[in-house]
């Protein structure tokens, strides 16, 4: 345990800072003037009712959308426009709300693809295979097998992912994101559509990723029980605006948040 780990989440070093981000599609303002930070080693939850701009926020963070205003600073380096694959090579990985696995490939190949950013051998070495390319492949296979062990999916290693049940697909997707050894992991509704048992499994994996690998996690989730138990700090969005930010117990008692979730009579 380093000193950083023993500090409460709010006092650690900032990993990612979102400053005054605004994003609109034509006349629709998806996100307006949102600022928050994600600190090293924490589990940061982003919650809010449907259409609040949570997924748009993740898309901004990993470079899929480009905000009209505001800056994002990752590991102290501010960035303006960035393609998603650059975000991936800089250490931001993510999973998707609707499963976005490569359906024609096996579990192993899916997770190996996630490791592509760490593999270096060029086309000519790959064409020869024997030698450096094969050695590299085996080296990364070992790392991927560790992830497979960690997620307890050894038995489906060579199964095409299209044939897997939903819960396992979600797990493979987490594996694919982990394979890149990210410093920031974005999880978009990792437990959507799961039953209680699967949610408990997934929660366990998320906590283990956080504590064993030290990966910082930002997650969107609708299950409040899960959010309150897992996260160190919570940011609440509603209609593209930030209405709450802080530790779970503080957010839970925030009147704006309660109003957003339960609705308030409009005069």
């Amino acid at each position, binding site marked *: 345990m380093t000193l950083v780990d023993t500090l409460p989440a709010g006092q650690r070093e900032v990993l990612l800072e979102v400053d005054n981000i605004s994003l609109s599609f034509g006349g629709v303002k998806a996100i307006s003037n949102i600022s928050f930070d994600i600190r090293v080693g924490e589990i940061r939850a982003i919650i809010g009712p449907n259409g609040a701009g949570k997924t748009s926020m993740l898309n901004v963070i*990993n470079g*899929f959308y480009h905000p009209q205003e505001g800056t994002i600073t990752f590991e102290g380096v501010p960035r303006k426009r960035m*393609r*998603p*694959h650059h*975000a*991936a*090579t800089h250490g931001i*990985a*993510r999973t*998707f709300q609707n499963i*976005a*696995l*490569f*359906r*024609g*490939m096996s579990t192993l*190949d899916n997770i*190996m*693809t*996630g490791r*592509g*950013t760490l*593999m270096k*051998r060029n*086309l000519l070495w*790959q*064409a*020869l*295979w024997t030698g450096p*390319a*094969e050695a590299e*492949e*085996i080296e990364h*296979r*070992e790392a991927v*097998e560790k992830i497979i062990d960690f997620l307890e999916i050894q038995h489906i290693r060579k199964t095409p992912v299209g044939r897997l049940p939903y819960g396992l697909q979600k797990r493979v997707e987490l594996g*694919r*994101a982990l394979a*890149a050894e990210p410093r920031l992991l974005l999880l978009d509704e990792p437990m959507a559509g799961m039953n209680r048992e699967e949610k408990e499994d997934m929660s366990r994996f998320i906590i283990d990723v956080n504590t064993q690998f030290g990966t910082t996690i930002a997650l969107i989730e609708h299950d409040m029980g899960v959010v309150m138990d897992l996260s160190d700090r919570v940011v609440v969005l509603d209609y593209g605006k930030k209405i709450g930010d802080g530790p779970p117990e503080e957010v839970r008692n925030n009147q704006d948040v309660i109003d957003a979730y339960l609705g308030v009579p409009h005069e």
Partner: protein
Amino acid sequence: MLYREAGDFKTTYRSDQQTFPIKSERFLFWAVIALVALAVPFFINDYLEKAVLIPFLVYAMAALGLNILIGYCGQVSLGTGGFMAVGAYATYKLMTGFEWMPMPVIIILAGFITASVGIVFGLPSLRIKGFYLAVATLASQFFLVWLFNKVPWFYNHSATGQITAPPREFLGFTLTGANAEPYATYLFCLGFVFVFAWVARNLTRGRIGRQWMAIRDMDIAAEIIGVNPLMSKLSAFAVSSFYIGIAGALYFSVWTGAAEVTEAFGIDKSFDVLFMIIIGGLGSILGSLIGAAFIVLLPVLMTNIFARWLGMSTEIAEHMQITIVGVLIIFFLIKEPHGIAALWRTIKEKLRLWPFPH
């Protein structure tokens, strides 16, 4: 029990990820290679060479290339004929311009020239996909054919507009021209197909192949997990065109010996190769070979059966053959939409458990 994996344990990742993980499969593979490389050259004749084996090898090469692009990377292309023409004309210019150059070098160089042309025509794939990309590549097909007709430099200002392969030797074996030996041309083509099928397998099982397949299966997710779409798509176009260029080079230099671009490399070539990979199996090396065999060899076989053995007139045999091949294509596509290679995979799965399926 020829085909079994019981007792065939894998203790290293290296042995787990080899191409033929089952011992009997490896044995079968090397037996086939030994047969085609060591036995066939002794009884090959002109007919077998020009009508059966060389056509199969040339189309197998083209199918391998197109399968990398469509089957692995998911970028539909109808420019195959045009790219084959680039390979053929590059070979012609190299053969006539640099007479000292050995044939294998010429063929490989023709491949690289086609690859660079392929990259240029692959640029639209960064913006458009699916049917729209297919139409964009169709433009390359017509443009390239027009170009080779229009600019006399490409056919050395010959009066007929044709290109003709001058006779060339390699290691003392005549490969091109009228005096080419059947066994020499056959082994020459076989060597190329063997080596480049192996290369295709290597590319598709490593990082680059996985990135191609990721682009094919879900391009947005692929980009978000770190696949560079520009590099992946253009490398697929380059590698694919390289193969198709070599196929065109072999088609012109070793097989036909002469070519006229409109006739030899028209749009029907593009469709032929496309049908091969659809029937053989998209995203499968074996499928490319099976598809080429199906489209090239079946008509030859049919014509032989009907005209020679059953004594039908050649016209009737011809029509019978077209009908039956058509019906067979429909049959296979209904029975196994993923191609004959998928059928073979199913058979293997069954064989693993045979004779006790439960």
